[in-house]
């Protein structure tokens, strides 16, 4: 379910590092909690994000939820497809439903995040 080459946060974001850039999205658990997603507010390309700064807002029919930067860095790209098809986040949260691509500033921030195994354990704890 949760890819081994991703890292995860307690707020249910994922990050996939490739070279000095990283894709960021929300996890399958998060999309399931939100329900039908209808709108994703995207940041401007070029924006500098501090660690834990809100980078996007995801609206489902019933609620609205912030997505926080798992690491600090500059936004180098956003997933423009979400403007028309926000439900990609529901359908393919770990793939086509990515939200932004960041320039990694400090690799140590990535190392501090949860592995897939850690995240799955963390989710088990939430259900009890």
């Amino acid at each position: 379910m949760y890819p081994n080459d991703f890292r995860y946060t307690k707020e249910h974001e994922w990050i996939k590092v490739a070279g000095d850039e990283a894709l960021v999205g929300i996890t399958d658990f998060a999309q399931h909690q939100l329900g039908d997603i209808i709108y994703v507010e995207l940041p401007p390309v070029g924006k500098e994000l501090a660690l834990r700064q809100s980078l996007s807002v995801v609206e489902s029919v019933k609620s609205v939820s912030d997505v926080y930067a798992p690491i600090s860095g500059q936004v180098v790209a956003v997933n423009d497809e979400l403007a028309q098809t926000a439900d990609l986040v529901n359908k393919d949260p770990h793939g086509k439903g990515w939200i932004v691509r960041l320039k990694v500033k400090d690799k140590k921030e990535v190392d501090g995040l949860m592995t897939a195994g850690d995240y799955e354990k963390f989710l088990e704890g939430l259900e009890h």
Partner: protein
Amino acid sequence: MKKTRFNELHKKLGGKMIEFCGWEMPVEYSGIIPEHMAVRTRAGLFDVSHMGEVLITGKQALAYVQWLTPNDAARLAPGQVQYTALMTPESTFVDDMLVYCIGPEEYFLVVNAANVDKDFAWIAGHTKGFDVEVENQSDGYSQLALQGPLAEKMLQPLTGIDLAGMKSFHWAKGKVVGKDCLVSRTGYTGEDGFEIYTTDPDPGIIWTTLIENGTPLGLLPIGLGARDTLRLESKLMLYGNDISDKTTVLEADLKWIVKLQKGDFLGRPVVEKQLAEGLKRKLAGFELAEPGVARPHYPVYVKGQKVSEVASGTFSPLLKKAIGLVYLPIEATAVGTEFEIEIRTKRIKARVIPTPFYKRADKK
């Protein structure tokens, strides 16, 4: 938390349970959008047992209902139902409700879950001078709603009541899946459909039989999430959002439930005053002109001035746009008027549009 008699069945169907007005209720099963569309195109089954039921009986039952409400209950024959309000002397809302005429000395009131205790205290507290008895029967009742264009087709094989012969806002008593029920052609979705009341202590078989028989025809169980999007598309009021003890019946754009020719009733002098002087504000429907969703309590600006907050607001699964209701200064309520809603830190353009946002084509 209180549980309805269908609680375990919701959990078996994968209902996501939340606390609502002290009740553990399903907010969604398969998702708000698929549930919403099932009701618009096929049918949906709701557990609405959290609603309250109050019985008024006695020689002056009709006179008392007439005193408490602005609509004309004298127009009801036994077998008919009416949408009306419990009104304060200020012509604001204690609640909105359905009144069922059971007989000339018997009226059955169905009120909102959030207001049951307050409503009953209000109803029991104003009986002075009326020869009536009032009884809060809420705990004894379970209520299901079967809503959607296929509702009649799904329910008819399970009941001896002639549903084809039942007009909108009419009711009849009879068996449903062998259980004694009161069935009315009413609902809170804007679709054709029925509300099924029973005092049977073990009514689960009604739910399970409807689900089993209806599923092949596209029936889905529906949670509170889609109940809200469905009612808002049809501009059906939600107490606490669109109407309250701070909003008058005329401001809520519910003049059609006010029948002045019927005689005196609580709040009437304020209604007459507002009719004579005109309204300062009114509930209007809007759509967003930009992407986003305007949710309740978001600040609303007309010509740069904060005038109110969003009353109800959501994404309409049918119209695929953000819609809502808001109290606007009367001069800003004309269709086409543009104003702004603050969504997080940005002011987003909105415009007044005609309501209801959705009306079914075959309305009976």
